């Protein structure tokens, strides 16, 4: 009899759901997420694990309850921030944009970050229904300790909950009715329709297009999207990496610039994939397109190169942190050539994380030389560099190739020999494909600092056509930005990278090259996280200087461009930053 009673209790405890439950009550765990705020800065919830409490407000423009709650939180923020409480608002309203949110926050004198949940995926999982409602979380276990109104009359519920949380006492009133303005969440009513999202027609083709270039046999991604069963098994992980913006590995803020090599999923694709997973990753009918993925890798898709350069052999260990490899390789040619395309053929494709190839090494600021330094980058899944028509890179005889190679460990030792293929032009081009370097070799990043920003500026003295932007930093790089300052005083953000990820040395290639008038200055800035909250930081107690290795840092940005008017003499020494 006792045994039977135990059975019944157990049945209640594990009563089954095919996917997430969408009410989020005190005691429930909040999963991690990452969102940009109204100013284009990135916030990850679990980064706040060193806080004593986190307060989240469901906010919306034009909602009186939301405005009143934001103002109350603003004054609480002044009181509680020093005690380790972080305050964030989240706007999950479809009608609100980062610009309109920033405008209203400014008008109301609200300084707390307002995270823009444009896909509503985070608001849906937080169970947001009304603007003006708050959630208070305990970062020790990410459980909800309070949900409801900030206050009602003389009852300061949120402040009382915070006071209890800060002293480790139980929260007396953990749930109240928040009231406030209803948030329209059309997908919340469509939960049953999400179970009808087709694996065969929607999910598998999306994964094939965006993910399988790496998530395939022998690819750099650790697991293969080779069947429905694999995708289903990793479904909760796929959902997590989408919510935290770890994958796909594309880190540009979509509100600035359009890039030809954009690896991200569209908003509709992201929503379909997350909702399909939340519906239990249903197989549905039809074939499994992921079992049909071809097994071979492209070998020199542009044809046989005019010159193949072998990079040094490298033995990758099973695990540990591997320093960047810096190599110099002789150019065997006895004459100058113009390069029109560059490709790489990785040896150990599963371990080669990136290569930055240069002619003579990256230029130091102020250095002048006959070549521009930059040649090409390799990252997994990238296309060969094809320099725009009528432009080329000069490779002088006797110049040496410089390579910075980054390997990733995956649990087993392997040996890599990678090749670089160069394609030459028949005759000199009309334009040189140039590189502008923005760097500050005198940076000193203070110890135990969560955000330290430094910048460098490059002024174009002629009208130029810009093709790509490349921010570069090491383990402590956290966020990057390129801002054009035009001669008429206007400023424009060319690229915002709210979450810089050193593992992905992405060159952001503008879909349509942009013209910068003569006299335009481009300010490149990098924010560094030298705190213990940065999980890649080898030593937060160190003041970090400039250095080639990943434990040191760099403020280093590259813009690839050409002059708009014909070069009188394309072999003339390139301009360099002052």
């Amino acid at each position, binding site marked *: 009899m006792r*045994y039977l009673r*135990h*059975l019944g*209790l*157990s*049945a209640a*405890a*594990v*009563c*089954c*759901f*095919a*996917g*997430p*439950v969408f009410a*989020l009550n005190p005691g*429930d*765990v*909040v*999963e991690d997420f990452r969102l940009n705020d109204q100013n284009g800065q990135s916030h990850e919830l679990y980064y706040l*694990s060193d806080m004593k409490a986190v307060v989240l407000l469901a906010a919306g423009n034009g909602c009186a309850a939301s405005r009143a709650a934001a103002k109350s939180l603003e004054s609480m923020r002044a009181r509680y921030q020093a005690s380790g409480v972080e305050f964030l608002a989240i706007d999950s309203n479809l009608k609100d944009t980062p610009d309109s949110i920033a405008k209203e926050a400014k008008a109301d004198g609200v300084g707390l970050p307002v995270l823009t949940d444009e896909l509503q995926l985070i608001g849906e*999982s*937080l*169970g947001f229904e009304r603007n003006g409602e708050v959630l208070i979380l305990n970062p020790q276990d990410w459980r909800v300790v309070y949900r409801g109104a900030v206050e009602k009359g003389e009852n300061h519920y949120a402040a009382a909950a915070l006071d209890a949380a800060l002293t480790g006492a139980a929260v007396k009133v953990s749930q109240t009715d928040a009231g406030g303005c209803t948030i329209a969440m059309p997908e919340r009513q469509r939960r049953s329709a999400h179970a009808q999202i087709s694996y065969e027609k929607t999910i598998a083709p999306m994964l094939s297009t965006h993910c399988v270039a790496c998530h395939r046999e022998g690819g750099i991604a*650790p*697991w*293969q999207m080779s069947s429905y*069963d*694999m995708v*289903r*098994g*990793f*479904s*909760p*992980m796929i*959902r*997590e990496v989408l919510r935290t913006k*770890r994958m796909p590995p594309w880190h540009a803020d979509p509100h600035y610039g359009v890039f030809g090599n954009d690896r991200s999923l569209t908003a509709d694709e992201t929503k379909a994939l997350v909702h399909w997973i939340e519906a*239990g*990753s249903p197989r549905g009918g039809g074939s499994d397109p992921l079992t049909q993925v071809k097994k071979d890798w492209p070998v020199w898709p542009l044809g046989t190169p005019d010159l193949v350069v072998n990079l040094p052999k490298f033995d990758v260990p*099973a*695990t*540990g*942190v591997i320093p960047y490899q810096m190599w110099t390789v002789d150019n065997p040619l006895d004459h100058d050539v113009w390069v029109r395309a560059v490709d790489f053929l990785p040896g150990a494709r599963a371990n080669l994380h990136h290569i930055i190839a240069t002619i003579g090494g990256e230029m130091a600021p102020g250095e002048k030389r006959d070549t521009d330094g930059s040649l090409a980058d390799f990252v997994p899944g990238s296309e060969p560099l094809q320099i725009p028509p009528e432009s080329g890179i000069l490779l002088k005889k006797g110049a040496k190739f410089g390579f910075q190679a980054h390997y990733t*460990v*995956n*649990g*087993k030792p392997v040996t890599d020999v990678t090749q670089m293929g160069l394609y030459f032009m028949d005759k000199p081009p009309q334009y040189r494909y140039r590189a502008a370097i923005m760097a500050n070799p005198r940076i000193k990043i203070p110890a135990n600092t969560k955000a330290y920003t430094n910048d460098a500026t490059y002024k174009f003295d002629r009208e130029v056509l810009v093709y790509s932007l490349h921010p570069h930093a090491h*383990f402590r790089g956290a966020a990057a930005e390129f801002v054009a300052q035009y001669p008429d005083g206007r400023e424009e953000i060319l690229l915002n990278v709210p979450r810089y*990820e050193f*593992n992905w040395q992405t060159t952001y290639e503008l879909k349509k090259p942009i013209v910068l008038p003569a006299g335009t200055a481009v300010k490149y800035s990098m924010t560094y996280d030298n705190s213990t909250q940065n*999980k*890649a*930081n*080898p*030593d937060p107690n160190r003041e970090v200087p400039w250095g080639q290795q990943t434990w040191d840092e760099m403020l280093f940005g590259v813009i690839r461009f050409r002059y708009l008017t014909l070069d009188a003499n394309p072999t003339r020494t390139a301009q360099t930053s002052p």
Partner: protein
Amino acid sequence: MIRGMRISWRLCVLLTAFGTASASVPAPGAHVADFTLQDETGLAHELYALSTKKAVVIMTQSNGCPIVRLAVPALREIRDRYRSWDIEFLLLNPTLQDTRDAVLQEAAEFQFGMTVLLDRTQQVGEAWGVNRTAEVFVIDPKSWRLLYHGPIDDRLSYESQRPVHHAYLTDALDAVLANKPVAVASAASPGCLINFPNRKHSH
């Protein structure tokens, strides 16, 4: 509801649970029920047959997860360092997707050198409240109580590694061998989320 009852009934009959069959994270001190699982070569292993060991260390694993691939060499190194003590080190694969052949291949390719227990019905994983790969469980075979639950150490995170500051697992083992209580009995554990479709999801 009917489905839920069926599963919890199986859990209770097989007595694979930490106390009651709840999917919440197991608290250190919880009682670990016996189980028998096959390994990647087809051999059966019963937990309670390890009653003479000083400790039983079990780490969750799934094929293709980068964090557990990077954690296995560290676990192997710890096993070798504690070889003179009678401690059992095992891996537990509670995934739906990894077949026995696939686990054999992964174990050979990455030279696991440790037995992988296959929990393809996910009964042990569900009962233990497993959430991710690379979660380590340290069990005391005298009392069959959980002594530690968390990562090996604080080295690994998503797409990054840093020097070890807290060696949770070896600290726990040293405490066990010295007959002292484990000071840090649980810690947050990075790894790949494992799909337990019949579990009530958190948020």
